[in-house]
Structure formats: C-alpha cells, structure tokens
C-alpha cells in the first residue's frame, strides 16, 4: 500500500510538474515564485490553537484586514495580496511541516510575521536553502539579526536584551534606592533579559525565575508571592508573557499587596485588552503599573496610526476588539506593503530583500523607534517608551497623553539614549505611496 501510494503520487506529481512547466513557459520570463501578473502570495505561521494561542490568534485576521484594505484600493502595483495562514500550535516540528506546505506547495513569495523563536529556528534551513524572504518575524530573540546565519530574515521587534537594558536605565533614573525584585521566564526570553539588566548594572533584591507555561499552576504563583514578601521588595519587574502577568496580579491581590508594590511590566506581557480578559473584575489591580512598549497604546485616540488602523479594523475585521495584537498585525502588514512596493514593478525575492536593506529604514510604521535596516544590518526597532496602565488597562505615557520619551539602545553594550520620539507621518488614508 505504501509503495503504491508513493508511485501514484509520483505520477501525479510528474503530471503537475509538466503542466506547471507549460503554464510557466507562457508567463513573462521574469515571473517569480508566488507572484503573478495580478497577485502576490504571502504566508504566515503562528499558534491558532493550543495553550499559546490566546491573543496571538488575532494577528492573522488583522494582517488580512489591512491587506484587504490595500487590495480594495488597487493593491500593490496592481497586484492583489493574498495571505495564507497556517496554524503551528507553537510546536517547531509543526512549524516546519506547515512551512514546507507554504513554500513547496502553496509556493508563497515570502513569509511575513512568522511567530516564535524555536519555530523560526526550525524553518531556517528550508528558508535559507530556498532563498525565501522572511520578513518582520514576531520574536524578540536578538540572534535573528545575524545576516550571515539568516541572510533573508528581517526582525522587526526590538530584542529582549534591548528592552531589559532600557528598563534598567529607567529603573536607575526613576527608582533609585528602591528594593526591586525580578520575575522572569526561565528560558532564552528571560536569559536575554538578564544579560540586558546586567549590562545596565541593575541590582535586584530577588530574582525569581519560572518555567514557561508553569504560571498556570497555583503553587508557582504562590512561590512568586512568597519570595517577593521575603525579599521585602517594593517594586517588581515582570518579564514574562501576558498570562504570567495576569497570574502575578492575581497572586499579589491574594496576598493583599496591591498598591503596596509597584509593578513594572515588559512589553511582551502588558497588553491591556488581553489582561482584562484574563483578570476580569481583578483588572483594576494592575492600574498604576508601568509598562514598556514600542508601539503606541491601542487606546490612544490622538495617535494618527491608531485612528487610521482602527477605521480599517472596523471596516475589514468585523467585530475584532482593537488591541495590541491587532495593532501588531496591521503594522506588520503595512511594513510588508511598503516592502513589496519598493521591490519594484516585477518583484523578485532578491529585489524584495534589497528594497528593505536600502529603503526600509525610511518607511512609515506605528512604532516610535527608528528602524535600523541597511545593507549591513537587519535590526528593526531599537526603542521603548514607558506608560502607566489606567483603570481600563491601557497605557498612557508617563510624560502625559501623546507625549512620548523614547529610550533607544542596541543588543550589545552600547549606551541607552533618551530622546523625544519621532517617526514618519502616517501615509494619507493609511495607504503607503513610497
């Protein structure tokens, strides 16, 4: 049965290849994989099911909504963008399987916004051997900026090390003399952060690691709180995912510590809307917490990016609550549209990569941070601002609404620079004309 199946598949595949060859020869000579005269096909992998799915599963619909909006307004150089979404349940082996499908079967032109460190690592060999551009990967692991190992990969988010260094600077500027405890996820995510804090010279009265996903266990949360109390900390830095932030808030509430310790949250675990869903009536317990972010707050009605994305969300993403995940999806999609436009009238994978390297640093994006793309660097954002969570769970800049102070630095030993935030204006109607 096994043999028969394969042989049949072989004949079928041969027929398909022959047919495809015939079709291909009828097309203009420059046709690139995934690009036709009227369409461009892109792919994304992320967890839509499983324990890691909540929150992230809103991203692809937001990306699609933005692409639909661009398509309805003429597409990219006359081509309609199609996004193929695959669920990997956050398992690297599934990521490789579905990425095989995307690249070898669906024949996508490029991958955009693929999520997860180990997940992107697992597809690297395939992506490199096929020369597939992998744009704006959704992870803060600093390693993906290594152009030798990942020549076609472009990170977008600032690295965890960058974030920790900046947070360390913020702590020494504003919380000198306080007793600070750190809770961090005990894997690369947290290790990167520890490196950043040690570069910044931050000292903690307690460092409390936890294993990823163990925040679902009551004993683990109990241990956090017991250790915080024992250390006498008045300030707690949380460097974990959103469900861990939620668990910590619950634990502090239980111990009667709300209002007695100041929480400082990393960008990964501070999305107000997701936290509200997690905490329900306990959500106000997080009010007053300080959160680091690189994108503007999704609730900031004065921000031109937010208002434009919100309008698109209402029209093309029926019913979705506008939160940080929707913002991430739309922002990634807008970066992608600019990259595709810059890749030229007959885009190729090479011209797409060249376009980001030569022009990517000038493109419009919602984050206040500059982009560092160049022929010598694939580093994306490098900066954060700090906000205070309100009772509604959304962050307002510590300098007052609409006023953002940006802290930038690199993943290494460079200094942290403080400056007023600046970014390119949102293109008219949210449609890039680069």
């Amino acid at each position, binding site marked *: 049965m096994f043999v028969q199946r394969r042989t049949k598949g072989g004949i079928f595949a041969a027929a398909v290849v022959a047919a495809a060859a015939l079709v291909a020869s009828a097309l203009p000579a420059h046709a690139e994989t995934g690009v036709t005269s009227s369409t461009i096909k892109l792919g994304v992998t992320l967890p*839509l*099911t*499983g*324990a890691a*799915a*909540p*929150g992230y*599963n809103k991203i692809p619909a937001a990306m699609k909504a933005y692409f639909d909006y661009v398509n309805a307004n003429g597409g990219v150089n006359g081509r309609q963008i199609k996004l193929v979404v695959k669920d990997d349940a956050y398992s690297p082996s599934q990521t490789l399987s579905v990425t095989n499908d995307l690249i070898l079967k669906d024949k996508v032109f490029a991958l955009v916004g693929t999520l997860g460190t180990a997940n992107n690592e697992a597809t690297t060999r395939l992506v490199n051997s096929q020369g597939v551009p992998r744009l704006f990967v959704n992870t803060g692991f600093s390693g993906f900026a290594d152009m030798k190992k990942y020549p076609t990969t472009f990170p977008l988010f600032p690295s965890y090390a960058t974030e920790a260094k900046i947070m360390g600077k913020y702590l020494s500027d504003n919380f000198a003399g306080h007793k600070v405890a750190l809770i961090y996820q*005990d894997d690369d995510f947290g290790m990167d952060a520890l490196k950043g804090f040690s570069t910044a010279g931050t000292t903690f009265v307690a460092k*409390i*690691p*936890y*294993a990823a*996903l*163990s925040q*679902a*266990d*009551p*004993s*683990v949360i*109990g*241990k956090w*709180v*017991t*250790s915080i*109390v*024992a250390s006498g900390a008045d300030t707690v830095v949380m460097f974990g995912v959103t*469900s861990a932030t*939620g*668990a910590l808030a*619950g634990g502090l*509430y*239980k*111990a*009667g*510590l709300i209002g007695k310790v100041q929480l400082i949250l990393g960008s990964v675990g501070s999305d107000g809307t*997701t936290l509200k*869903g*997690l*905490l*329900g*009536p*306990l959500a106000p317990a997080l009010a007053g917490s300080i959160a680091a972010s690189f994108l503007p707050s999704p609730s900031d009605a004065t921000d031109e990016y937010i208002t434009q994305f919100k309008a698109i969300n209402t029209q093309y993403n029926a019913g979705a609550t506008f939160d940080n995940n929707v913002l991430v999806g739309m922002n990634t999609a807008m970066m992608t549209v600019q990259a595709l436009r810059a890749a030229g009238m007959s885009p190729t994978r090479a011209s797409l990569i060249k376009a980001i390297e030569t022009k990517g640093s000038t493109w419009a994006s919602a984050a206040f941070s500059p982009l560092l793309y160049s022929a010598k660097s694939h580093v994306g954002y490098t900066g954060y601002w700090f906000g205070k969570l309100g009772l509604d769970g959304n962050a307002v800049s510590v300098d007052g609404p609409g006023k953002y102070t940006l802290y930038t630095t690199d993943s290494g030993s460079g200094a942290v620079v403080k400056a007023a935030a600046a970014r390119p204006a949102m293109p008219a109607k949210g449609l890039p004309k680069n």
Partner: protein
Amino acid sequence: MQIFINTILVGLSSGAIYSLMSLALVLVWRSTRVVNFAAAGQAILSTYIGYEAMSSMHNYWLSLPVAILAGAGISALVEALVMRPLAKRSKGTPVEAIAPVIATLGVLGGIRSLAGLIWGNNFIQYTSPLSSKGYTIGQTTIPFSPQNAAIVIGAVVVMAMFAAIFKFTRLGLALRAASFQPEISRLAGVRVDRIRTIGWAFAGAAGAVAGALVTPTSYLSPNSLDLLLVSGFVAAVIGGLESLIGAVVGGVVLGLGFAFILQYIGTSVTFSAAFIILVIVLLIRPQGIFGRRSGREA
C-alpha cells in the same frame, strides 16, 4: 518561619485543586479500569456550559449545578458512545489495555477543538462571588482565600459523598462488583453496562466541580486545565488509584511536595518536580500510598 507557613498554605491550597481532578480520575478507574485522559476535556466543556449559565442567570451558585449536571451528562455520553463499544471490540486483544487510553486522548483533543470552535481560543473569565483575597490574621495576609476554602470543602464533600455511596448503598456495591468481576456481576443480575455509565457520570460530576471551582482562580480557555490533568493523574497514582481518600491525600502530598521543592530547591525543576515526587513515593510503595497490592494488576 513566615515563609515556611506560607509554603504549607500554598501547598495545601494547590493540593486541594489537584485532589479534585484526581477524584474524577479515580472514580473512572474504580468503575471501568480506564485512565480517563478526557477528564480535563470533559471538565473544560462543563465549565464552559457553567459559564454560559452564569452569563444568562448572573449567579455563580446557580451555574454550579448546571455545570455539574452537564459534566455528568458529557461523561456518561463518552462512556456510552465511545468507551463501551471500544471495550467490547478490543476485549481479549493485545490493545485491550491501551486502546482506551488512546480513545480518551482522542476525546480530549476533540472536546478542546470543539470548545475552541464554539467559544474561540481566548481567555474567558468565569468568576465566583467568593473573594480570592487571602484571609488576614493580625497584620499578615495569608495565601489562603475564601475561594481556596471552597475548593477544600468541595474536595472533601465530593470525597465523602462518593465514599458513602460506595460503602453504604446497593449502587455502590454494584459499582464495585461491576468493575472487579463484570461477568459474575452480570450473572448476579447487575446491569453492568448501565452501572459503568453511572460510574462515569459520577466522575464527570466530580470533574465538573473541579472545573467550576478552580477556574475562578485563573481563567477559562480550551487548554486551561491541561496542566491540572497531569497533576491530577500524578496525584491519583500517588494515592494508589483505588481509593478516594488516596486521591485527596495524593493531591495534598503532590501540592506540598511541589510547593516545598519550588521554594527551597528551586524553579529549575518545576516540570520535573512531579516526576521526582512520584518516583520517591513509588520507590517506597510501588502501589501508591493507599493502593492494595492486588490493585496494581491493570
């Protein structure tokens, strides 16, 4: 000293949570000799139904019986539609012992996907009116809240109620007979199939209590009870699988062991802690704390 006492309280309150799931697994094991991995799935589904009931009635206490009845019904359906025909088909074959495990895993996956399909893969709040703020003694707030007290009471009530049913009622006798000697029971006029379904319904009800009491301490999602399934099973094995008291003791041993390992050894062994505790217990007593030697034969 404060740390030591807090660690004990953390261990006891999480131990009670493990006990509830452990009871659901032991009830199924006692009635049909199956390790029911679908228990977490069934509890998820009944908790979603409880959540729906609360959304329409706006009362947590009224939603509890709805969830419990739903849990019993779901569990009975799983037994009647999947487990019973499977037991008959696989009888006397090499897969007899292991096929039910796979079937329950299939049910677990199916229910999780179904829950995602209906309610979405999001975090949902199913809140109880009981405070989750710890009791205050003098100046200190202890890590033990009214909601934790409800969980402890829930575990003790479920344990005592089913222990009484097993010990003092004809139904309990029939349940024991049907699982140990199905053929003889059938000859003696026990309607074995129906009795086994009732055994599963009891377990489903216990699982529903677990879901409905534990969820207010965290959140609801299709995967939110995954970790509890593992701890519940480990607790059941520690307790010896046979005994309802063992299920609760197993949960408390695991909870205390886990809390002390996390506090005094470190978090690097978080996920290995259950394995370490289990190996220590089974090295001393291979049949678990309350298991009978003969009960080991699976």
